């Protein structure tokens, strides 16, 4: 019995193919059911995000299950399995579990440290569980994976600092204004990065978004999209007096906002700070603005610099995350190994035999009166009771050993007889993944997978 995963991701397949293989909620559940019905998978979970589609299976014959999954994906993609194969990857056993852990911790993501993937895996797992596609192994494995995802985000700073220009800009704004719900943003120019930044600002609670553009219609359209409103370009100075955060991304060849304009507007600002972000090339904002009191000016280079440093920090944190994945992997591995029939029977017999012997020893004093023959009789009697009791479970387990669901029996026996006491089993295993003082990470700082590139953000 092995865990198997077959999938495609941003690393192996182009967007166009990933789109064809995207599985939304009910479809994903249907795929998992198909794998169970025809692919020889005992348990199955189908995960689909904008950057990956992956089928996880727990199967007796990992090769057959992998092949069935590939065929299923090929059918959905509308091509032959042989044509699809180069764009997919397939792992089994420990490598498959390691893959799941690396995915949930975002180590396999396009944007290292993004948090969305945890929710996406939880969703995929919940849907499969409610649809009856998971059981002992995947219930344990996926819960463990989610804990690993949480642990990595609690114990490392992998997702802490923003790695996209737009969210770095928003972070800087927060450093000046604290919470943004009392601030107004002014977007000059209807460019894409400006819009993305406006979306981020909106998500962080900015109170009002003003959009202005030389062509009023473009401003109006964008204002509608980001939940703000368009204002006339001619009254820029008035808007500068009203805004706290100014983001400029026009294609103008000269400075759109000069030092003098800001100075005039500043008189009406009563000392409130003004935060400028220039994401245009050539620049829109006069660098001399930065010399004024209470103004902060960042251009695209400054932001790229922040992003590059943050990315380097995330990569440093990724090393720690890999170590956590390795550590957690050994825990799951040890548990999975216990789900084998033959060693379980041996352990069961051993455990019961130990009980018999210790009970006999405990009675040792009272049996002292017996002669050797009588003592042999007692030995025989107790042994035969033990053997009789164990006979049916042993035979039944050997019988089911050939079936797919055998590990369910093994798990039941191990739980009922408490055979997991060697530190790797179910009973103490349930708690060990949960860090005692784990706390929720700052989900607000997380970015969706692919937040760095506007095109991929749309799912």
């Amino acid at each position, binding site marked *: 019995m092995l865990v198997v995963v077959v999938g495609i991701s941003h690393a192996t397949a182009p967007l166009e193919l990933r789109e064809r293989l995207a599985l939304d909620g009910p479809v994903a559940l249907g795929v998992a059911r198909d794998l169970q019905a025809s692919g020889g998978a005992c348990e199955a979970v189908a995960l689909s995000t904008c950057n990956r589609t992956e089928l996880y299976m727990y199967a007796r014959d990992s090769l057959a299950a992998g092949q069935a999954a590939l065929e299923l994906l090929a059918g959905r993609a509308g091509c032959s399995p042989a044509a699809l194969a180069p764009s997919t990857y397939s792992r089994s056993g420990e490598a498959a579990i390691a893959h799941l852990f690396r995915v949930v911790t975002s180590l396999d993501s396009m944007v290292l440290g993004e948090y969305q993937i945890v929710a996406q895996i939880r969703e995929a797992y919940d849907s499969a569980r409610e649809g009856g596609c998971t059981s002992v192994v995947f219930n344990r494995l996926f819960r463990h994976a989610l804990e690993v995802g949480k642990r990595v985000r609690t114990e490392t700073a992998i997702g802490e600092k923003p790695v996209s220009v737009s969210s770095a800009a928003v*972070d*800087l704004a927060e*450093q000046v204004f*604290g919470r943004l719900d009392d601030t107004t943003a002014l977007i000059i120019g209807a460019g894409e990065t400006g819009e993305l930044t406006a979306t981020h600002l909106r998500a962080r609670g900015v109170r009002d978004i003003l959009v202005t553009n030389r062509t009023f219609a473009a401003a109006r359209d964008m204002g509608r999209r980001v939940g703000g409103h368009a204002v006339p370009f001619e009254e820029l100075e008035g808007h500068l007096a009203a805004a706290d955060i100014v983001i400029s991304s026009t294609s103008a060849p000269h400075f759109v906002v000069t030092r003098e304009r800001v100075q005039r507007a500043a008189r009406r600002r009563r000392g409130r700070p003004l935060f400028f972000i220039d994401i245009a090339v050539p620049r829109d904002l006069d660098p001399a603005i930065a010399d004024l009191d209470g103004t*902060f000016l960042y251009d695209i280079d400054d932001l790229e*610099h922040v992003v590059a440093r943050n990315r380097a920090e995330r990569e440093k944190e990724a090393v720690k995350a890999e170590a956590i994945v390795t550590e957690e992997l050994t825990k799951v591995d040890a548990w999975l190994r216990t789900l084998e029939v033959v060693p379980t029977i041996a352990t069961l017999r051993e455990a019961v035999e130990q009980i018999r012997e210790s009970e006999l020893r405990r009675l040792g004093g009272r049996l002292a009166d017996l002669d050797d023959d009588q003592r042999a009789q007692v030995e025989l009697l107790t042994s035969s009771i033990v053997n009789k009791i164990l006979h049916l479970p042993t035979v039944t387990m050997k019988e089911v050993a050939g079936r797919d669901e055998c590990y369910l029996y093994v798990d039941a026996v191990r739980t009922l007889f408490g055979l997991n006491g060697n530190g790797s089993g179910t009973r103490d295993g349930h708690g060990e993944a949960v860090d005692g003082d784990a706390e929720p990470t700052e989900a607000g700082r997380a970015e969706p997978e692919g937040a760095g590139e506007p095109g991929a953000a749309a799912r």
Partner: protein
Amino acid sequence: MEQVSVISLWIALLLFGAAFALFIFHYLSRREQMNLRGVAVALAGWVALGVALVLRAAVAERLPIVGAYESLALITWFVVAVYLVLELFTQVKKLGLYVMPAAILFLGLAWSSYSAPAGLMPELQSDIVVLHVIVMFTAVGALYLAGCAALLYLVEERLLKRHRTGSVLGRLPSLATLDRLVYRATLIGVPFLTMGMVAGGIRAIAFGVEDWLVDPMVLLSLGAWALYLALLYGHLRGGWGGRRAAWLAVAGLAVMLVIRFAAVPYWSGFHTYGG
């Protein structure tokens, strides 16, 4: 019992040191847990310091406000109290890193100027003196904090202007937070400072102290008071950036420190009990 009090103060000093170490670790690793642990340890230190002060008061059979040892320990207690209130009950977070060194410094100074508990000299045995001192300590705690927040504001503003974001982002409270803290702490401190000065004046008049109004300490206090009033006025009127308020608070802090460490022990003609 005096020994227990001194040991308790020593424990407080150690705990503040441990909290400081945790805050440094939090700054470097940016793990929220470290800040929480630091706050817990600082709270323990604050309790230990409180115990030390209560025991000292019990031994001397009066409030622990006489001499440098007692007054510095009491100031530390007030400063840490204000910090803990902010950290635990408001959105102003992550100040431990900056408050702890000050607390350690003050407590260390107190430690180095230890004196055995003595009874109250007859001049100080009056209700109005007790009121004056308690009110002043509250004012000093709040205004020191305002000054520290203002210093931090000026440093952070400069770093942000120069795009030195690495040492700022996620590590320092936002400028808005610090600005609010400067204003609020001053708003708490000024009424107490006013009350304390009025009480001091009444005491001086009632006992016929000569030339009290031109005493260097009194003059400096009036100067600090004017600075803080200007700060509050500017904030209420609006139109003053956080920067100007921060400079005023820093100037106020400088005057307050001169009063505490130069005027009270050396220059003042009559006000030397606290030194």
